[in-house]
């Protein structure tokens, strides 16, 4: 067939054998904005781990005599109303915000993708029932639900708290220590936010899956004898990845902001713990007098969200072998 192939051969440059992940990584590295975002996020994350651990101030160490001071050599980001070093607090708050953003998004990702893809792929009755449940949940004022939950069940000694203590008690005897209560509250916020934001994800995934389900390559897979589950996992979901990733990266800032709102209401992270949302909220009260107390946490939040968006764009392109940036 040499004559035949030469007739339609086309020049293809190629790096040779490589896996899908390696290919995707190669494509991601070519996207400068994504690489820069990845570097910034990495640096921020490292800062969040190191600064509170190595800094000369504790995140809760107050110095009421000092009070609020603008940025100086001693306090690079200044101090807040209670004379606490803002830089340590900002990076400490970053730990909480990052954790909320990433963990809640992961929760919403897992629930949303599973729910949406099952509904979209199997269609008919299953789809109708599953999506009516989503519709019903949409009508729920979720924030109020979270607030009610945390007031009645997630309070100290409440039902959810007791369950949490029991589970944690299996691992550490210190679970009953009241100082663990704030940790419980943050975990509760992760779970509540994840559970609140999977609905839109489910809708997006379902739409994608319905469109892809009709593609000939799905029928081709069926004709070779692939099972429905493997078609969904191996063919449909990878092709739906683009919009899923973009939406996931949009969810990260959304949950960070919601966490800030909950904290502001006194339901999420509590003083003296910190999160970017909480810091920004308290900074906003005095921004006309001590602007730096607002500016630094807000700046961190903004940079992080910006980077997540660019990273999401880059990932979407990198995971699609059809897009080549040569």
């Amino acid at each position, binding site marked *: *067939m040499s004559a035949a192939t030469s*007739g339609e051969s086309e020049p293809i440059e190629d790096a040779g054998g490589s896996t899908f992940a390696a290919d995707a990584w190669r494509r991601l590295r070519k996207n400068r904005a994504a690489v820069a975002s990845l570097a910034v996020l990495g640096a921020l994350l490292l800062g969040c781990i190191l600064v509170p651990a190595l800094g000369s101030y504790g995140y809760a160490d107050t110095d009421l005599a000092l009070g609020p001071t603008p940025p100086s050599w001693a306090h690079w980001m200044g101090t807040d109303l209670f004379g606490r070093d803002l830089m340590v607090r900002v990076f400490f708050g970053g730990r909480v915000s990052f954790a909320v953003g990433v963990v809640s998004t992961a929760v919403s990702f897992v629930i949303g993708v599973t729910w949406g893809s099952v509904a979209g792929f199997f269609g008919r009755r299953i789809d109708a029932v599953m999506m009516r449940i989503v519709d019903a949940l949409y009508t729920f004022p979720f924030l109020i639900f979270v607030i009610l939950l945390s007031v009645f069940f997630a309070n100290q000694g409440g039902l959810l708290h007791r369950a949490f203590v029991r589970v944690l008690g299996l691992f550490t005897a210190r679970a009953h220590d009241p100082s663990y209560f704030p940790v419980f509250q943050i975990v509760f916020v992760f779970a509540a936010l994840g559970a609140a934001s999977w609905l839109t994800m489910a809708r997006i995934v379902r739409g994608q899956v319905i469109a892809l389900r009709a*593609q000939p390559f799905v*029928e*081709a897979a069926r004709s*070779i*004898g692939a099972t429905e589950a493997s078609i969904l996992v191996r*063919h449909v979901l*990878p092709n739906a990845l683009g919009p899923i990733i973009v939406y996931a990266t949009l969810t990260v800032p959304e949950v960070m902001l919601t966490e800030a709102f909950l904290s502001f209401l006194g339901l999420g992270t509590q003083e003296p713990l910190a999160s970017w949302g909480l810091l920004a909220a308290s900074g906003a009260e005095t921004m006309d007098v001590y602007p730096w107390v607002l500016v630094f946490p807000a700046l961190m939040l903004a940079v992080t969200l910006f980077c997540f968006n660019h990273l999401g764009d880059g990932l979407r392109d990198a995971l699609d072998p059809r897009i080549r940036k040569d």
Partner: protein
Amino acid sequence: MPLISVEGLRTSFFTHAGVVRAVDGIDLAVERGEVVCVVGESGSGKTVAALSILGLVPDPPGRIVGGRVVFTDRDGERDLVGLSPRELRKVRGNRIAMIFQDPMTALNPYLAVGPQLTEVLALHRGMRGREATREAARMLGEVGLPAPETCLRQFPHELSGGMRQRVMIAMALLCEPALLIADEPTTALDVTVQAQILELILALKNKAGLAVLFITHDLGVVARIADRVAVMYAGKIVEEGSVFDVLERPAHPYTAALRRAVPSVTSDQPMREPALVCAAAPPSESVAATTGPTPLVVVEDLAVHFPVRGGLFARATQTVKAVDGVSFELGHAETLALVGESGCGKSTTARALLRLVRLSRGRVIIDGVDVAGLSGQRLRRARRSMQMIFQDPYASLDPRMTVLELVAEPLLVHRICKRTRDARPLVAQLIERVGLAQEHLHRYPHEFSGGQRQRIGIARALALGPKLVVADEPVSALDVSIRAQILNLMSELQRERGLSYLFIAHDLATVRRFADRVLVMYLGRIVESAPTHSLFATPAHPYTQALLAAVPSVEPAEERARRRLPLAGEPPSPLSVPQGCAFHPRCAHAFDRCRNERPELRKIRGSVVARSELAGAAIAGSVRVGAGVAGFGSERSQHEVACHLDEVAPP
């Protein structure tokens, strides 16, 4: 002075991969009342050339970098290349109109046909209100739409492909243009409808003196309508001349190769070029292959009905009988073709065989196993012996998988190999067999050309060592020269591995070269079943005769001499299949019995009407040969037809 004269036109695309010279210095002229065809394969630059004339090349990345397009009209001579966008708009649609391959995308799906036509009239001719409506209706009548007033109120999706293309032509003609540019206007249509549209364009040319620049890849279409032909290859015109000169005595090797790559419906003769020719065994030899003791596939009374849901609670209100009682057999190493217009149920039949759609009724026995009743694990096991090659090599390969993963997938699914890595030696062997190289294993489908992708699809279908391969229009998405290569490969594989093919096609010329036996389907039923040579020599059913008559031949002289009976209208909706013989509303010979009683498929008795008269002089010569063979061999090599005419004819 020609109406339009293209001089040294060059259009380039400036991409980040470099400059692509899509049109690289072409000279072309169209006189008034002349049809000039531009022929070439995909990527030859023929469409870009047409878009350049109208200044419609997307910019960026495209730009006209040189040459002139001189349009000589009643307002005098103008160079279209230098015109401002505003002046160009006045020419476009007004003096030069264009129609496209896919009329659905060119019509606004949210507007009824009427407003779309009157908008053109208001814009270019200042006609409004009732006057515009009357003019629009007149034009729809002119292009052969049966009920113009109804059509004005219909939306594009309510019209069939052929009707939409007529609407597009009507829209193009509303401003009485001097030149019509048609870019593959019949490629998406059935042969029968294509024949109607070509007749319409010829009639317009003769009546109104319209000049037509017709872009196509189909040499048969060229032979039918062209006065002059320009053959494009890699952005250049490699040959130009009268249609007789170019097609009968091609001077350029590329034209000659293109010409030879086209199979003919009317003869087996003119394809000898080894590289481009299909090596299928001649029909007389392959009859032996079909007479094996037991057939591989037996289909009995197969039916596939789809419910049409509507109304409240999505109840099934109507039933589409896509396939309605089809029975046939397919022998070992035999190729059986299923032909018919779109919507006749040929693809559904094939997909029902592979259990890709739910069967409503019937038995499908493949290699001794009734697959109609299987499910779960047993169905999956049965799938190993039946595989499919898909029509669209672009959409049927998962874009996120490498060639290795794609071809290894069947092996993994059936646990023949545990990991992709283990499958590699097998996959490499398959890939080399279908004409690709080992280096291709780690590339993605989008990096390959259409023909190469179809090779990947074939390798994937062969991975499990099937006995039956269903090929659903495997070459219709490919260029002519690539088609021959893929069909060659399929024949070689058939001889090597004893594959049986169920070959679905609407291209009758390909069927003639490739198939041993042919089933003609019309509205979910088989109307004629015959060995290939017998069917083409003595088509018995009036529908088969019309199908054959609609295929244009590449011989211009023969094409023009042929008496044509274009099949009127289009197949009725499968929602309301006519009483009696489903074909009777379009049949010229229908009598009372046809309207009331449905004919059954039976062995052919005598000559149906004067078959030679219907099928044309070229076919008439071989009638005796075909009739002689019709009664020969086993049951499966019989010529059967479902038509009352056959019964009234003397035996």
